[in-house]
């Protein structure tokens, strides 16, 4: 597979200029995620308005895949409900880890650019880190940091 399949322009762009890369001062929930293998570390900030995600942001340092994944995630989920976020987690998890997940690429929109990661087993955890962190934040507020190792 060509490297361009992994480092698609959208990923390179979101790495260079990550969206929603900031703190939320009045966040409802804050969660840290860590990948000790490569040192990727990020903090996800979530602000809820009832069941709706009124703001979602992140900070941290990581490789292009992990930063782009978190950037795309924040862009996509702002304004969505907690239920929709959980459904998207399931879809993304399938996309990043399962061979047979291509059928639903269209509904994922821009997030589908991350599908190339599947061909690089050592990099899958980079892409899933922010998603696991988000899942943790939604299901178990106040948990210890997420680790993908």
């Amino acid at each position, binding site marked *: 597979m060509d*490297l*361009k399949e*992994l*480092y698609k322009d959208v990923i*390179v762009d979101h*790495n*260079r200029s990550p969206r929603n890369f900031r703190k939320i001062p009045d966040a409802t929930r804050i969660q840290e995620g860590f990948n000790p*293998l*490569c*040192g*990727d*570390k990020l903090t996800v900030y979530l602000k809820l308005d009832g069941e709706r995600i009124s703001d979602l942001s992140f900070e941290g*340092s*990581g*490789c*292009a*895949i992990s*930063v782009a994944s978190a950037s795309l995630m924040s862009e996509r989920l702002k304004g969505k409900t907690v239920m929709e976020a959980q459904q998207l987690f399931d879809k993304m998890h399938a996309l990043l880890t399962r061979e047979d997940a291509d059928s639903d690429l269209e509904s994922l929109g821009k997030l589908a650019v991350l599908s190339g990661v599947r061909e*690089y087993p*050592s*990099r899958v955890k*980079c892409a899933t880190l922010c998603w696991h962190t988000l899942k943790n934040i939604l299901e178990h507020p106040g948990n210890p940091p997420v680790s993908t190792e």
Partner: protein
Amino acid sequence: MNARHDRNPLLMPDFDAPRWRRDFPILQQQIHGKPLVYLDNAATSQKPQAVIDAVADYYEKLNSNVHRGVHQLSELATVAYEGAREKLRRFINAATLKEIIFVRGATEAINLVAQSYGRSRFQSGDEIILSEMEHHSNIVPWQLLREQMGAVLKIVPITDAGELEPGAYEKLFSSRTRLVALAHISNALGSINPVKKMIAHAHRHGVPVLLDGAQAVPHLPVDVRDLDCDFYAFSGHKMFGPTGIGVLYAKEALLAEMPPYQGGGDMIRTVRFTGSTWNELPHKFEAGTPDIAGTIGLGAAVDYLGSIGMLAIRNYEQALLEYGTQRLQAVKNLKLVGTARHKAGVLSFVMEGIHPHDIGTIVDREGVAIRTGHHCAMPVMEHFRIPATARASLAFYNTRDDIDALVQALEKVREIFR
């Protein structure tokens, strides 16, 4: 020596790396359709045919348990196993065979010293001196000891060049100092520490010294008696031998006083339910059936290194390091991490705006294998305030072509992140 050598300091000393490279079957293959350029030798080295054959021969012709059978195979296996011990003794110039303990690797060797020597001798408040550049394997065993008995860890800081801070080591000694545990060569930075001088200083305080030699033994001549170190730990797999085998060297007088590390077969003289007595050195520290094949393979690796010569290897790698340093320094927005004056063949680096993990993935597609991450030296990363580095590490089978391939692959990285 050819005449051109005098004129061009970058020209390699007479050393036929391509000839030695042909002894390594794994290096003949292609990765992602490109010739393999293996620059991850500090993680593990490749194995020459002689080592592979020695391991296979053992299983095909000698396999049986050592030190116990009267049958022919057991006797031959014992001779081969103990023969390897003699090869290792000579290789590091230990005084006697009693001082060569076979273990799983440098990690187990250091844990052995912590749990046997440390636990039997140290008291709460006793101090161990380490450095900021240690591999986790020379940090965590001492932290376990700290939890078990309240030992105190004192850390020699490093400079931004990756050298031990001048004068800091000497200041850490106190009446409670019981041990110095120090990397001979840093795996993350390549720095060669002035260990001989540091050992002499510790001895003036009556303090023994353990050296983590995992990165030194494969790259320069090591003479434990000349160094006068008290413990020396190293791994077979980083010196072109098999995984799962390594050596703890320790002075006989220390080993004689130390209690066993693990109990089991082979390490005992007599066993009764009322109590047991221990076997003589070195067997007291080798409980259970050892890694016989691995030990014989390690012996073959030592023979192989001997046929090349450690001094020749060191000189060649120094020249290659110099070439690699110059080439990498010329790459735009690349910064070397670890620029000690005395360095072994480790080129750790970061590139502005590009995470090491991405560098590793992209150069891999060009057939170039490097390590990316914290290199099991998180305190070093913390010192430089970086999460990780990319690291190219050299062996004698690497050539300038390998460095050129890396530099070319880094251009590809820049292209993708332009």
